[in-house]
């Protein structure tokens, strides 16, 4: 067990999982909200762009998206997300940030749909009232619609967060040193420890996701708009 935790870097792997989840959650929330606003807007062009974004991203496997980030954005467009002398090495830092980019744009599509489902929980009267007191689209969105939509969307947002946590394992496809890569290394270099590694990793993910689920249920209940 000591070997897996330290020599194979399982603890570091889980720390990487947490970092990937944290940053991707924030960025996907920002991008997802932006796309959701586009899909709700009165401008037909923006609505179509939003719909196209969700359709394209949701139907592409995350593995492909993350590979694209590596060979497309870094390899072809030459966009570098880390300094040449980044602490922790250029390649590792760059791949870590590319993985966050891939995870964020993919889950943003689900965040967008979650927020739209939250908008659906708002009674029509709220939007009508906002319009009738003369709020513009932007104002009613900011003051009336989005605050209630977020509160109504906590359950699907929480489910997206849990899925995101588990999907960070796919960052292993571009060599980010998280739990799936640790698992692979254990299996290849010390197959006798396979069961232990699997047990520890599974337990780790349960430990990460169960509190998320409990908090989601708690806040979904507590923050629900009483109607």
């Amino acid at each position, binding site marked *: 067990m000591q070997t897996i935790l330290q020599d194979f870097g399982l603890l570091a792997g889980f720390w990487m999982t947490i970092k990937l989840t944290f940053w991707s959650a924030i960025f996907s929330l920002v991008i997802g909200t932006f796309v959701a606003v586009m899909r709700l807007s009165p401008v037909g062009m923006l609505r179509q762009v939003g719909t196209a974004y969700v359709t394209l991203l949701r139907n592409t496997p995350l593995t492909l998206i993350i590979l694209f980030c590596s060979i497309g954005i870094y390899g072809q467009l030459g966009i570098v997300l880390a300094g040449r002398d980044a602490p922790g090495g250029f390649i590792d830092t760059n791949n870590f940030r590319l993985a966050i980019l891939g995870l964020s744009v993919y889950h943003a599509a689900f965040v967008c749909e979650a927020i739209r489902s939250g908008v659906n929980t708002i009674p029509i009267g709220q939007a009508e009232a906002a319009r009738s007191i003369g709020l513009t689209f932007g104002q009613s969105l900011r003051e009336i619609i989005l605050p209630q939509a977020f509160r109504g969307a906590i359950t699907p947002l929480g*489910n997206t967060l849990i899925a995101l946590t588990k*999907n960070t394992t796919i960052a292993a496809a571009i060599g980010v040193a998280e739990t799936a890569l640790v698992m692979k290394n254990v299996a290849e270099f010390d197959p006798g420890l396979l069961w232990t590694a699997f047990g520890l990793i599974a337990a780790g993910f349960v430990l990460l996701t169960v509190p998320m689920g409990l908090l989601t249920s708690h806040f979904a209940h507590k923050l629900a708009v009483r109607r």
Partner: protein
Amino acid sequence: MSAKTNVLFDLPGPKARSRHRLLAVVGAVVLLALLAWVLVRMDDKGQLDPDKWLRVVSGEAWRYYFVPGLRSTLVAAALAIIISMGLALGLAMARMSDNAVLRWAATLFVEFFRGVPVLIMMLFAFYFLVMMGWFPSDVNPLIGTVTGLVAYNSSVLAEVIRNGVASLPAGQREAGLSIGLSPSQTRRMILVPQSLTAMMPSLVSQVIVITKDSALGYMILYPELVTSARRLGSWAGAPFQAYVIAAVIFIIVNYGIDRLARWVETLQRRRGRSAGPIADAEDVPMVGAGVRGTVNAPAGG
């Protein structure tokens, strides 16, 4: 949705219309500028070279890479769907059973495998099979991929079925019991069949999740579409282009399945065949609510 969205803003007057036009133009310009920039950057690297694109859509590329790759993807997905469905039925029945041991075993299985990432399960199954050497080594990737997919999706589908049963009107169960069926007969003959019909759209959309997740087989060298694209990329010297084509194939296949799911849904609504409203996975309280993967949760893949 559309009726709801339209309440968010008034019918635009002349001023608003011109403002919207302006916004649309600005949006289009930004998008086009981005696209142009990407194309220029790619051209600088020689990625717009028609030769490279022709090589990845040539007859050989299809014959030796994309078609076999797509076939492997579909084989893994189909196997996973069929096995998951069967296992999910069993798990759902066991979770609703009157036998406490059975119920707890099924609950443990479902909650555990919903919490473990599909990729971890796949890696474990694959290396376990390699270590045991039960099968010829060329089928290990397929079995590993399918095992990973089945473990997660059968658990999710079992919950879908169970929630479907919970959303049926109580009268269905009562009627079954009152004509003398045993509780398990009632579940088997009355409740679960109706739940399956009601959950049909969710079941079909789970098929998309499975198809996408089968791309994880890439990590254990199962020769599915992404793996084939990588091999084609190095054969043709055009990795970027090969992945683009693979992504397009995935989008078309999944978009098709998505359309199918919606069509099934409207068909059912028109016929009024479903016995109750289609339940969301959120509606039913569950043990260990934490590791919950509803059908709406994003898949990996």
